[in-house]
């Protein structure tokens, strides 16, 4: 028989959204946080960008709202975006007060940077490119100092417990022990899907678990076809890959194909500074002929001072960017779709909430504006925490189930399956998609799932989430935002404002 834990609130995941929810909800009740590895393993800690918020002179939530809606390519939710941009500044200031060491100007105000598609300077950074790590450090400290937050590390949530149509907790493997966690409210904050792709900037824990778990619980998911790819990650055999910021291209670095030819000049007037999706697709196309390189040698001696972080990353891998070409590849970066929530973070299943990358709040639409992801995590986690306070306790606990944690019968076979998922998704459901390729992809995913060894719970989540992405991408016969169909390269009016729901 499984063990049983009773808590007021259960938070699954320990990125910015999960930690912020736990911190704020713990001011009123006991909270249990579960995480697959440790508190420090999340995409949040990897975020090199910053947090966008209308904090500067001359900026306003309305300007931020317009930029966000524009990036969303007619699929963003106006009300959700309004919530994001109006509540965002307060969340950033709150985090600063909580101890986040954000970069400040000599005046003491936030030092605000600018990023692509923002109409003004509004990006808050910490230690340059360490914003995510600083946010994670601050929130982990708040969670750890709270006596009302318990943390279960190395805990895999297997499925939600649905009783009489409501979510009453989760079945989990706590260090291998079958455990039922019963909660008055459950929050999915499990992050994204980068590990479904061969190349990704997301950590190894980003295997799309929350999407598959929510789908099996009949929660509504939407916009799963919209995946954002970053154009230039360092092309090494590592997983995850290291980002090479656009700023390097901004300093004059050029992209060369395997023949040593500069190719972006033929693709776009802005050449290497073309929009991310254009650069990513151009590199993806050139990779069919061999490795693509970033030539940043002209930065020369300024490298260690101009880009110290990236310089160190390259040096650690035996690449001297002052003298050598840097191999680069596009990489899966962010999932815009997910579990559909209302403005309070409530999913379609009573007592189940979602926030962060696993949620589809509507703020990103078909494409995410840079530095809006940490902001979304903070803003909607706050709303979830507030809404949960009103949740009445469960009238009665569900009967204890009779189940065991499935034992992984063949770890090697599971790893092979995961690699196959990553390969097929990259090939057919990645940067450039076609109907034919997506059909092949879905057929391959079916085969992979059929051959999964017993107990491969994470890989089963991977294949199920991958299929949702591929099926949605096949259905949306147009190109919009992060979804590009080379057989339907234009946006179509018939699809404007329409979402594919599961």
């Amino acid at each position, binding site marked *: 028989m499984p063990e049983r834990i009773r808590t007021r609130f259960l938070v699954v995941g320990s990125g910015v959204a999960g930690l912020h929810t736990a911190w704020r909800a713990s001011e009123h009740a006991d909270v249990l946080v579960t995480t697959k590895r440790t508190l420090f393993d999340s995409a949040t800690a990897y975020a090199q960008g910053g947090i966008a918020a209308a904090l500067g002179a001359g900026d306003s939530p309305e300007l931020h709202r317009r930029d966000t809606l524009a990036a969303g390519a007619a699929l963003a939710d106006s009300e959700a975006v309004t919530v994001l941009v109006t509540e965002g500044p307060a969340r950033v200031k709150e985090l600063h007060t909580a101890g986040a060491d954000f970069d400040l100007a000599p005046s003491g105000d936030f030092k605000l940077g600018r990023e692509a598609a923002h109409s003004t300077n509004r990006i808050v950074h910490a230690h340059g490119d360490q914003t995510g790590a600083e946010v994670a450090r601050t929130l982990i400290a708040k969670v750890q100092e709270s006596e009302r937050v318990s943390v279960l590390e190395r805990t895999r949530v297997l499925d939600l417990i649905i009783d009489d149509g409501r979510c009453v907790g989760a079945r989990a493997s706590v260090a291998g022990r079958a455990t039922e966690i019963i909660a008055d409210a459950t929050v999915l904050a499990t992050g994204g899907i980068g590990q479904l792709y061969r190349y990704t900037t997301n950590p190894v824990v980003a295997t799309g678990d929350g999407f*598959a778990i929510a789908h099996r619980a009949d929660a509504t998911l939407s916009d799963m076809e919209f995946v954002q790819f970053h154009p230039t990650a360092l092309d090494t055999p590592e997983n995850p890959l290291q980002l090479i910021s656009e700023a390097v291209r901004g300093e004059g670095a050029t992209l060369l194909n395997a023949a040593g030819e500069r190719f972006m000049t033929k693709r*776009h007037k*802005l050449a290497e500074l073309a929009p991310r999706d254009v650069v990513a697709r151009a590199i993806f196309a050139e990779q069919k002929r061999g490795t693509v390189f970033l030539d940043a040698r002209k930065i020369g001696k300024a490298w260690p001072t101009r880009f110290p972080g990236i310089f160190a990353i390259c040096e650690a891998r035996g690449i001297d960017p002052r003298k050598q070409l840097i191999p680069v590849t596009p990489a899966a970066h962010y999932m815009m779709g997910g579990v559909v929530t209302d403005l309070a973070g409530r999913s379609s299943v009573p007592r189940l909430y979602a926030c962060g990358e696993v949620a589809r709040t509507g703020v990103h639409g078909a494409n995410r504006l840079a530095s809006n992801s940490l902001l979304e995590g903070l803003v909607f986690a706050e709303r979830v925490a507030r809404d949960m306070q009103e949740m009445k306790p469960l009238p009665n606990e569900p009967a204890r189930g009779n189940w065991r944690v499935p034992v992984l019968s063949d770890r090697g076979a599971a790893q092979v399956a995961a690699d196959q998922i990553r390969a097929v998704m990259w090939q057919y459901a990645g940067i450039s998609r076609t109907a034919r390729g997506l059909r092949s992809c879905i057929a391959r995913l079916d085969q992979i799932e059929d051959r999964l060894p017993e107990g491969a719970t994470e890989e089963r989540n991977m294949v199920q989430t991958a299929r949702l992405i591929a*099926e949605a991408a096949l259905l949306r016969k147009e190109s919009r935002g992060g979804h590009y*169909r080379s057989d339907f390269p234009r946006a179509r009016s018939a699809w404007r404002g329409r979402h594919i729901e599961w």
Partner: protein
Amino acid sequence: MARPSHRVVSRRRSVRPDGLALLLALAAIACGHREKAVSDTATAGSRAPSPYVSEIPAWPADTSDFATDRTGRFPAALRAKVPSCGAATPVVARDSIGPLYPGQPLPIVLGVCRNALRLWHWDDGSYLPAIAVKLGDALVVADMAGMTADDVVSRVIAIEGARTAEGIGPGSSLAELQRAYGAPTWRRNQCTVDAAFESRPGLVARIAVAPSTGAASCADVRRYGDGNDFSRFPPGSRVEWIAAELGAAG
């Protein structure tokens, strides 16, 4: 896992972006076209490097003086404004018509045909920004994905006077079309129906369903637009226009 079942919804809270935002969104969408390689190297490879116009003139207002009618056809006054951009009548290839090709950036289009008429071309329920030129005896329209220097041609259309190497062009019968390219893949739009062909990826034919006088009879399209059989179309149905379009065979 059971096969996922889906539904397509329009959420109440989903809105279009407002003015500036919409323009930026269109530009972002247009960016998606640029990297598409032109596949038919027989014509694309022989092109000389094109001049480049860095200043894009403003598009004319969306008035009847600069717009096709709502069947996509050219009123006489508009037709008279279309300038010539070459004496030779081009062959319609699956990746280009003369010097114009899908994916071509607007500054290059205007560099190749400096006096090209900028207009609004009706297509299945909305006006698209487009340019029109005469190439020999052919009237050719290039639909644009937008109106800025970053935007590209999404489709090049032979409205009249140009034919493919197989002799297919505006006015060809459906039987001739099928003989030339085999069974089509139908693309039923809101009020139009197009035919694409596995044997000629990139080539698209808009069908004028008889007895309507244009290519945009919603009733006729609803009546005949499904299925994959030319014989379902009434006698007299013909090719309204033929175009080279990115990825049209998909």
